[in-house]
């Protein structure tokens, strides 16, 4: 009887591993940047190319850094979530317009609403590489000291915002 159970136990262990594996997203590669200072950038602003925006401008506050582009389909899915968040005023959102054209980007914001305090234009994607961007949209939570606390790969959904990002932002804000 005992020996007959052994294959069953092995089978259940394998099923357990497969079940966990099914729920893992292979696209979610853990970022080595979490816990490290956000890479420095100094880029022209989307609304005014003569003005420069730098990560140092945001020191001293908790902020979200959202990488987006007008060509990015999944960005459309998260856009209303970001707009609602910006209206709540809980945390400022800054954008990184990744490998986009200025006109398309401005039109996108005019159509869908602009949740960003300011958007930096990363036309050739160099800053994107520094931030390890490989699938737009991506969103970083950056703390008062300029350290990356969290990276969301893929769209920010209401669930992700409620369960992960907002609790983290609140914790960081009272630090």
């Amino acid at each position, binding site marked *: 009887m005992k020996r007959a159970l052994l294959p069953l136990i092995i089978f259940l262990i394998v099923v357990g591993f497969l079940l966990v594996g099914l729920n893992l997203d292979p696209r979610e590669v853990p970022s080595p940047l979490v816990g490290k200072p956000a890479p420095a950038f100094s880029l022209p602003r989307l609304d005014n190319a003569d003005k420069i925006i730098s990560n140092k401008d945001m020191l001293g506050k908790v902020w979200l850094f959202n990488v987006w582009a007008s060509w990015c389909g999944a960005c459309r899915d998260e856009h209303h979530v970001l707009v609602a968040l910006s209206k709540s005023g809980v945390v400022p959102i800054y954008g990184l317009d990744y490998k986009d054209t200025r006109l398309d980007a401005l039109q996108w914001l005019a159509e869908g609403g602009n949740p960003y305090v300011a958007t930096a234009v990363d036309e050739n*994607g160099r800053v994107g*590489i520094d931030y390890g961007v490989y699938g737009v949209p991506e969103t970083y939570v950056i703390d008062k000291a300029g350290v990356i606390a969290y990276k969301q790969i893929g769209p920010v959904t209401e669930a992700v915002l409620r369960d992960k990002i907002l609790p983290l932002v609140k914790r960081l804000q009272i630090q």
Partner: protein
Amino acid sequence: MKLIFRLATVFCLMFIASAWADEARPLHDGVAVEAQVQRLSEELRCLVCQNQTLADSHSELAEDLRQEIRAMATKGMSDQQITDYLVERYGDFVRYRPPLKSTTLLLWFGPFALLLAGGIGLFLMLRRREKSAEDLPLSADEARKVNALLNKES
């Protein structure tokens, strides 16, 4: 596959001398840089299409990263420095040969551990089977049957 690739390389090399006659001739440095870019991009994973190397991928990010690698190679950075640059940004996942460290121990030694466990299991099972196949004295009834069968044969 590898053989075809090698043959293709040899084939290309046979023609390269004549091909250079009308194309922009890369500087001597350029050849070394291109070789380094090629070598590295075959060792690094494209994160957009995860089962392709940077060399194979046509995604925009892969092209950007090849450019980036080329720029670094031109500056004379070593393979190690360039790989470190990318690992800093994208993690060990970009490397097709993951480094040996605490988080990758299972990856490196898991298959061998499974093989060892299987081997031990097989050994134990065979030994047990051998034991159970040992000669047992026949009962009187069985001995009679055996004799009857043997006699019938002859």
